[in-house]
């Protein structure tokens, strides 16, 4: 099979509510590095799928392919929505724009009318708890607030599929847990499907409905775990034996795959 860009879905996959469908996806970079091999992965409506794996295993490449930033070298990629949110590792805010103007950016690039996008931005700002900081510049914000701004910016697109590339990796533990809770709240409230990349196993288990474990380079999927805990999730679930057991299983698979 030759290189394929994401394509529109067939009737069959659409009926199943599948938003993202990777079949046997392989990614070889021009310099010969094989980043992904034989990846099968689906994200359905109502699912929050987290991918854990060692650094450099091609986790981010998955997202880049799903978003269309990269084109896979083999396999098929089906994406059944135009509304894709992408949250980068860094907040990637424009430093000369205020919080409000940063949140408006994507709607602005999509040609939305000023009044409409301003209302939409304000709604997203309130949703991530940044009300009162609209006029602040990014340099006046903490790392967590920058990430909230970045989240709000993507929320203005009302994404059906939300891609997260280790968004909280650079934050301290407390901020990170706080944002995890916020993200879960948004997930329940906004009903998007999520594909979340992380290297923290407990974050993966806590956030998702399904955890996918990847091996080291070339990245391939070595395990899939359904997370049975109901939504909305109680933060204290992290201290239950069931949670600990699942974290243990995932960690074990991760270690096996890394060998």
């Amino acid at each position, binding site marked *: 099979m030759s290189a394929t860009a994401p394509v529109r879905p067939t009737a069959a996959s659409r009926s199943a509510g599948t938003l993202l469908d990777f079949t046997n996806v392989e990614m070889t970079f021009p310099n010969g590095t094989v980043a992904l091999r034989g990846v099968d992965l689906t994200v359905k409506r109502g699912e929050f799928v987290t991918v854990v794996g060692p650094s450099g295993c091609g986790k981010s490449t998955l997202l880049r392919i799903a*978003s*269309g*930033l990269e084109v896979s070298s083999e396999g098929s990629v089906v994406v059944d929505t135009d509304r*894709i949110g*992408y949250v*980068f*590792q*860094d907040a*990637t805010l*424009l*430093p*000369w724009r205020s919080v409000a103007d940063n949140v408006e*950016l*994507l709607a*602005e*690039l*999509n040609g939305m009318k000023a009044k409409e996008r301003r209302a939409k931005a304000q709604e997203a700002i309130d949703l991530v708890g940044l009300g009162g900081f609209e006029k602040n*510049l*990014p*340099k006046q914000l903490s790392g967590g607030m920058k990430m909230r701004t970045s989240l709000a910016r993507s929320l203005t697109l009302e994404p059906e599929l939300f891609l997260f590339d280790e968004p909280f990796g650079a934050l301290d533990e407390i901020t990170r847990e706080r944002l995890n809770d916020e993200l879960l709240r948004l997930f329940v409230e906004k009903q998007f499907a999520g594909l979340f990349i992380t290297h923290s196993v407990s974050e993966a288990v806590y956030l998702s409905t399904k955890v996918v474990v990847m091996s080291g380079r070339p990245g391939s999927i070595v395990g899939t775990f359904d997370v049975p805990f109901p939504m909305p999730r109680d933060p204290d679930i992290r201290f239950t034996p069931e949670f600990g057991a699942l974290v243990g299983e995932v960690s074990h698979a991760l270690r096996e795959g890394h060998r």
Partner: protein
Amino acid sequence: MASVDQLALATGRVARDARIRRVYARRSAQWWPPIAVLALLVGFWYLVAAYYDRVQGLAFLVPYPHLVLKAAFADPLFSPQLVQDLGNSTQVALTGLVVAIIIGVAWAILMSQAKWIERSLYPYAVILQCIPILALVPLIGALFGYEFLSRVIVTVMISIFPMVSNTLFGLQSVDRAQRELFTLQGAGRWTTLTKLQFPAALPSIFVGLRTAAGLSVIGAIVGDQFFQRGTPGLGVLIQVSTSRLNGAGTYAAILTASALGVVVFLVFGLLGRLVVGKWYDFG
């Protein structure tokens, strides 16, 4: 044991007090050292001037500072000429600078659009920078006349390179993820340029602008060395004063040219701070 602890405590406090005092002292220490250096320089200048005046009998080579001041501000024959020539030079420098900004930024934007354009055009920016302008100046005069136009061309040639290189650097230094953010929304070249690359390049453009501004004054003076017609500036005044053995006038013109360079440098540095200082820290 107790006495040792007390000693440590005491010295600790002394060190801290000293540090605090130093912080306060630093603030007041900012203005007087350059003034002291100026006083020393002026004193030294008087000594050298006295040597040339009394021993060598060549007072015009190093005139006394107060005579230079008089020539600059209180000489009914010289001072008005100085002001007029300062005006002319400023006009040449600023015109050249504006042209250098427009061409330089446009040149850099063009190069930022594709690698092959950059590869095709950048060498010429470097060549322009490497040409000994002084060697070209007589030719410029012959081609474009010995007046305002030629002065401006020389100024542009001298000051354009920092505009081109700093703008290009700024446009290319945009974060990859930020660029991808735009790509994901299907933003075109123009949108990416105006909403991302150009604003992101502004700090770098202002650094180039400050350098180019200083160079534009040099360009205006250099042009004068070769083009005497039209609207002569400070360069001409320096030459004329020198040939008339008007030491005080020569020095006054040189110092005025230097002051113009400093002022232009400071003004554009300040302008940069005003425009992007809110979000960018020039350090």
